[in-house]
């Protein structure tokens, strides 16, 4: 037998409606988390995938497969060269998994990472030194 207060609370929850996240939201969150790492990047520019160039400030391409509340991600990413690829991708995997679960509540079970390009960091910022 429920107390009137608990009953009222549950009715209250029902009346609030539901929040539904599109798959694309999870994809974008995961892409944003990945691009926040300094060693990772995506590709930008181009038309229909032609002429796209690697860019450390772009979001990597993420595809999400949702099965209920469990997600499997596949990330296509560009990395800084030279970084230890195993360590860096493992760190990235943990970070994406933590952040996506924290922000959306979706449990991330698998993250497949494909390294699509490797580029050295620009040694100079391209800016002149100001005195």
């Amino acid at each position, binding site marked *: 037998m429920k107390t009137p207060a608990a009953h009222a609370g549950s009715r209250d929850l029902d009346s609030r409606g539901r929040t539904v996240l599109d798959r694309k939201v999870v994809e974008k969150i995961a892409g944003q988390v990945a691009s926040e790492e300094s060693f990772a990047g995506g590709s930008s520019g181009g038309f229909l995938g032609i002429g796209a160039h690697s860019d450390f400030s772009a979001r990597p391409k993420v595809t999400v497969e949702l099965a209920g509340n469990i997600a*499997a*991600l596949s990330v296509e990413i560009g990395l800084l*060269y*030279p*970084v*230890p*690829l*195993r*360590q860096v*991708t*493992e760190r990235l*995997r943990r970070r994406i998994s933590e952040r996506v679960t924290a922000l959306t509540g979706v449990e991330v*079970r*698998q*993250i*497949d*990472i*494909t*390294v*699509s*390009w*490797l*580029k*050295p960091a*620009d040694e*100079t*910022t*391209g*800016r*002149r*030194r*100001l*005195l």
Partner: protein
Amino acid sequence: MRQHAGALNRTWLVILGILTLAGGVLILLAASGTLHAMSPAMAPAESPVLTGDLHTAFGPASVTAIVLVAGVLLGALGLLWILAQIPRKNPADRYRLHQDPASGTTLCEASVLGSAVENQINTLPGVVGSSALLRGTAREPDLTMKVTVNNRADIQDILHSINARVIPDLSTALETPLRRTGIQLEVSGRNPVSGSTVATTGTVIY
């Protein structure tokens, strides 16, 4: 850069050599009569080795079929051997870099690593062009490089830079020392295509 079927050729040439040598020795022994002296069942010297009627032996259709199949088989083996002579690159497909596949896979195309190495070599002074090829596995990678230089290049300096920077960087990326590295140098009269622009970092005083 390309691999040849050296080991395969050596193995088969040794096997065929031993077989032909044994056949030759047998013919010599039969011709000199030594074989007849050792075993009287064998034909004596200067007399036919085969005495039976060969037409009846090859009469049945099954024998013809067996000879035909054996001939086709030998021909196919010979053809395969010829095809194996085509020099091949045998590049590594993709390197698997994950520890635990249950939490997800990490894949990197070997050509992606190869182009990173090429970009690094192309920045060395005097280098006109380069191509890098990775073979083997992610745990035991082999790197082969072809570096084209022009007359302004200091070859010792380039080799030193490759050994001191390019190879250690690839080792860092793959987190394992390279099993084998090969450098092929080529000289060309072309001018380098890269290095047409440079970011200005001059000091400006306002």
